[in-house]
């Protein structure tokens, strides 16, 4: 027994020996940004940048692995490492590191928006304001665009740089549906005519919640009544009542008579893939392309949007408070925002996602290249998407819808 205790002690001793690093004084974001941009780029040469991001989409992963990593290496001699991790986990890690006052963090870049950004900002998990330092952001982006200055109702204040933007669209199988509905009342008519062929994910799901927000926008007098004002349950009670009525109205005609809602977009996509329902939906207007190529969605899949419009949001790159390579992180973000990187992201072969860049600020040749990209038959035209763009509401609506949907629709 005694030996065992000694053994354990020795083991523990050995274990603690392995990981103990001397803490080095690190330069903070403020000090780094005092330097000129060329100095920042110079000191970033030869360093390693660790990008933590959700890793559940092969197209997105391949854009980083096969395009961004080799090009960044070639241009700046920066080694970019992609680490797959859920954003909630990343924030949890940062939160604990903040508590433990760990200054030499392992995360240099995070992919973030919405609720997560709000949490990170409120808890001081981000390095600070940096976007006004990025040459590419100043040169090619409309820096005052509300899509970049406000993220789900939270002021951005330069703490994250816009990387991409997506819009919500509905998908349908054009072999089975000739004319997709163009408004929510038409959708209701279609659902009643085709019982069991439509459903939407439950409100706890990101996409299901976005569907509900569309209904809420549609039932308000003006969509701006919702997205321009903070959540006030009293003020929107009329609109809310109309929304619940609409949802309860269509419920008996949904898939499985509305007794069961898909728990996630994945479930809905599978139902659509099997032909059990005829419509699916989701953020990223081009997401059907890769699913068609993989043979998951039928080749006749097309997309549509309805009145009053389609909600879109921006997603961002940001630097955590304890990044140990701020120069590298800044250089990498600047690179990701460059027209070349955005063009590669825009092409459908890897990611195929829309770009937040201002096309009219680009050089003529670059603009031509962007216009020449064929995003695929299932993607709506850029004009149509832009005309129907609606901004996100405040993050508080998301939670409120999630709770109320259960009371008003599921339990009715």
């Amino acid at each position, binding site marked *: 027994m005694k030996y065992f205790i000694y053994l354990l002690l020795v083991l523990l001793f050995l274990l603690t020996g392995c*990981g103990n690093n001397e803490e080095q004084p690190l330069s903070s974001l403020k000090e780094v940004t005092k330097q000129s941009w060329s100095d920042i780029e110079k000191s970033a040469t030869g360093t390693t940048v660790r990008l933590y991001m959700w*890793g559940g*989409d092969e197209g997105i992963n391949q854009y980083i692995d096969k395009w961004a990593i080799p090009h960044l290496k070639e241009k700046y001699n920066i080694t970019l490492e992609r680490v797959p*991790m859920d954003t909630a986990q990343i924030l949890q*890690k940062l939160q604990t590191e903040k508590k433990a006052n760990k200054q030499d963090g392992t995360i240099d870049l995070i992919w973030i928006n919405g609720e997560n950004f709000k949490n990170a900002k409120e808890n001081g998990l981000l390095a600070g304001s940096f976007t006004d330092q990025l040459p590419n952001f100043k040169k090619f982006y409309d820096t005052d665009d509300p899509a970049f200055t406000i993220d789900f109702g939270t002021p951005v204040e330069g703490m994250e740089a816009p990387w991409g933007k997506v819009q919500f669209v509905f998908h349908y199988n054009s072999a089975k549906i000739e004319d997709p509905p163009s408004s929510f009342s038409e959708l209701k008519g279609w659902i009643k005519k085709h019982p069991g062929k439509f459903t939407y994910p439950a409100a706890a799901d990101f996409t299901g919640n976005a569907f509900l927000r569309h209904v809420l926008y549609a039932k308000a007098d003006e969509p701006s009544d919702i997205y321009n004002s903070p959540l006030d349950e009293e003020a929107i009670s009329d609109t809310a009542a109309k929304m619940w009525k609409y949802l309860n109205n269509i419920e008996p005609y949904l898939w499985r008579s509305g007794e069961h809602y898909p728990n996630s977009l994945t479930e809905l996509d599978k139902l659509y893939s099997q032909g059990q329902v005829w419509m699916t939906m989701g953020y990223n207007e081009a997401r059907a392309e890769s699913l068609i190529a993989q043979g*998951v969605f039928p080749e006749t899949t097309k997309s549509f949007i309805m009145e009053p419009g389609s909600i879109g949001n921006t997603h961002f790159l940001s630097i955590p408070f304890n990044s140990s390579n701020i120069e590298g992180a800044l250089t990498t973000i600047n690179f990701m925002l460059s027209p070349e990187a955005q063009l590669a992201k825009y092409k459908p072969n890897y990611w195929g996602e829309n770009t937040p860049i201002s096309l009219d600020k680009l050089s003529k040749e670059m603009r031509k290249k962007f216009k020449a990209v064929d995003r695929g038959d299932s993607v709506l035209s850029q004009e149509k998407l832009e005309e129907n763009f609606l901004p996100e509401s405040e993050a508080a609506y998301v939670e409120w819808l999630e709770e109320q949907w259960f009371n008003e629709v599921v339990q009715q």
Partner: protein
Amino acid sequence: MIKPMKIIFYSLAILLFIGPVFLLVLQSFTEVWQFSAGQSLTFQLDSYSTLVSDPNIMEATFWSLVIGACVLVINLVIGLLSGKALSSSSFKGKSLLEALFLAPILIPVLAIAMGLHLFMIRIGLADTWTGVVLIHLVPTLPYSIKIFHNAYHQFGNHLLEQAEILGATGFRQLHTIELPLLKPAIRSVTFLTIVISLSQYAITAIIGGGRIITLPLVFFPFLQTANTSLMAAFSVWFALLPFFMYLVVELLLLLLPYTRKPWRNLR
């Protein structure tokens, strides 16, 4: 004569165990099947080429194996020793101690991991593979201790006392009596430990901090894809690991005394 019980057993086994595994393997080699569209199966290897082209997968497999093996060895040592102590000695507060040994599976592991993360950052174990091994002990050790405790309890103290009277040293007792008798327990512990350790996502992500990438970190985000072929390929790959490690342990068990060694019968 055909025994009806046997027929029922085999048909149930095929229906419930072999059938689903067969479907999984089949799915991993075919395109997503839209059965209601009346399509036939199309064979492909795309899901495996996607799997192999992920640059993290080999590193993740390596770390999963290393961490799984370390967790298993520590589990066997601690489980065996504490199981023996619990069954052979009696002392005050023994039941309290037993309850404490089980505590980690009664409290959510995530809650423990968050507290331990703070501690591990302070002593420099966060973001290291040793830290991940230690945190994987939390959800596995209670089972190992329980299993070994029961196994020792079953064959009782008398057997060991006899060996002691005959003058066998502790090590000899372990080698010639305890380990051969504990084989079934070792098998259960091996399987449980490896499967539990392999499937830890949240605690590996928190303690490993993305420096240590194991299979679930690469694999779990893909649960959100509608591409069932890719999912199936991942699952097959995932299932090969415990299978491989189980084989290694089986081979090691052959080294124990009184084992019928297959190569002897070949002569």
